[in-house]
């Protein structure tokens, strides 16, 4: 049985949750790393470990208990509900840009979105290299186009950290390619996750990256579509892809 590690999967209605469920359906043993303990019972059959993946020591401890890894999916991230302290806080109101965020905002958001990916990839690499496998990271359309001033529910530091995830993906693709480990990335636009619902409660028809009616496909994406794409990047369907970021945004930004 193959083993997959998925970070940020415990919250129901999240992309990570759906990825964990689908990888399990593919016949894999799924290990979930997340802070959100209440969600663990929604993933029966997964091995859920409470872990702050923005903490290098905690990540090393969690991975030390694993014997083998074939797939790593880094879904953890966001601009809010990303630390033990604000895990149930809901979205912050107002625009959070690079010029008005606190230094603490910057390091917290960078920690959850970029450092976490670095720590998990580093910890998983020795086991992935043994037999080959796949890493999929989750970036964002925000990395491509930034967050427009005034938009609520996302942040400038998030856009920058997610651009870092694309660069990390490329670098690791070079370092791990000869071991048969492919490293790819998806960059979702606005996806109908539990988080989006919380933002839309106060923002009306404005998504975290701007007005929803500006999306050419005329709708937001589904968690199922996004998870299906991530799973495809874990399988042999994408056997010759590495270092690539696949944009999934309803034609709202073509790179």
């Amino acid at each position, binding site marked *: 049985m193959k083993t997959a590690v998925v970070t940020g999967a415990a919250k129901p209605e999240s992309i990570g949750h759906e990825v964990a469920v689908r990888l399990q*359906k*593919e016949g894999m043993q799924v290990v979930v790393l997340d802070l959100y303990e209440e969600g663990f019972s929604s993933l029966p059959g997964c091995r859920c470990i409470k872990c702050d993946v923005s903490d290098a020591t905690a990540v090393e401890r969690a991975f030390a208990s694993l014997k083998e890894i074939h797939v790593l999916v880094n879904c953890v991230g966001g601009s809010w509900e990303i630390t033990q302290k604000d895990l149930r806080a809901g979205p912050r109101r107002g625009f959070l840009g690079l010029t008005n965020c606190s230094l603490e905002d910057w390091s917290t958001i960078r920690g959850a979105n970029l450092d976490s990916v670095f720590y998990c990839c580093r910890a998983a690499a020795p086991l992935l290299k043994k037999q080959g496998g796949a890493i999929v990271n989750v970036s964002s359309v925000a990395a491509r186009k930034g967050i427009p001033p005034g938009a609520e529910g996302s942040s400038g530091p998030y856009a920058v950290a997610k651009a870092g995830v694309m660069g990390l993906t*490329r670098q690791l*693709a*070079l370092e791990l*390619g*000869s071991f*048969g480990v*492919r490293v790819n990335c998806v960059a979702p*636009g606005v*996806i109908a996750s539990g988080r989006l619902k919380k933002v839309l409660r106060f923002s009306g028809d404005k998504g975290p990256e701007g007005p929803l009616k500006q*999306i*050419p*496909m*005329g709708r937001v*994406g*589904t968690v*199922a*579509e*996004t998870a*299906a*794409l991530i*799973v*495809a990047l874990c*399988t*042999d*369907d*994408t*056997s*010759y*892809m*590495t*270092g*690539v*970021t*696949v*944009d*999934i*945004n*309803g*034609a709202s*930004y*073509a*790179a």
Partner: protein
Amino acid sequence: MPLEGLRGRKALVSGATSGIGESICKRLAAEGVDVLATDIHPGAGIVVADLTRADEVEKLAARGTPDFIVNVAGGPVAPTRSETLPALPQGNLLLEDIDERQWSAVIAANLTTAYLVCREFAPRMKARKSGRIVNFASIAARRGSDRVGVHYAAAKGGIIALTKTLALELGPFGITVNAIAPGFIATPRIEQSGWGRTSPEAHRAFLEAIPLKRAGRPDDIAGVVAMLCSEAGGYVSGATIDVNGGLYFGP
């Protein structure tokens, strides 16, 4: 597990007689897709058509409206009715080697074909409010190429622009439009011609420079087509997906 959303659908695949197109047909058929395979070069189960001609594209449309259109037809040397599988060149195609006739023929084979097929079928897909279009670009358009010639690279660059534009135009109708940009894919035709192999050592060094340390196979591309036509491609549109073993990462 099979990909969701493929079984029972209909696909039109051009350039289907050999190589990447043939592999796509097999893969989609294995997923339960009813495939209409077309090519200018005859073959088993192939509907022969010259897709640089609007009247022949129109004739194809009489066979029904597909759910998926996969525009594979093309290549750095344009086929004709009398020579449907022209020999690939031995050396690199340089600017001064390409005359106006070749320029026009290669643009037609790679770019006009996709335009005509989209123009014929998009209105029918719009009426249904659904559809998937997968076009074929190339690494030659993404990073440039010293091998395939400026006509081919320019045509494939045109494919990327056509893809982005149609994604905007057809998005409101629930139609996704994407492109795949393959890197070095060892199709039987390329293998037989030995194209680009100045020496065995140089070819080994070329493959060694690819992060995945190998040439691509037609199946590697077919998997990505299947992905884009499946549930996984439902919200992907306007994208050009690089499938090249890590040789080039895109913009």
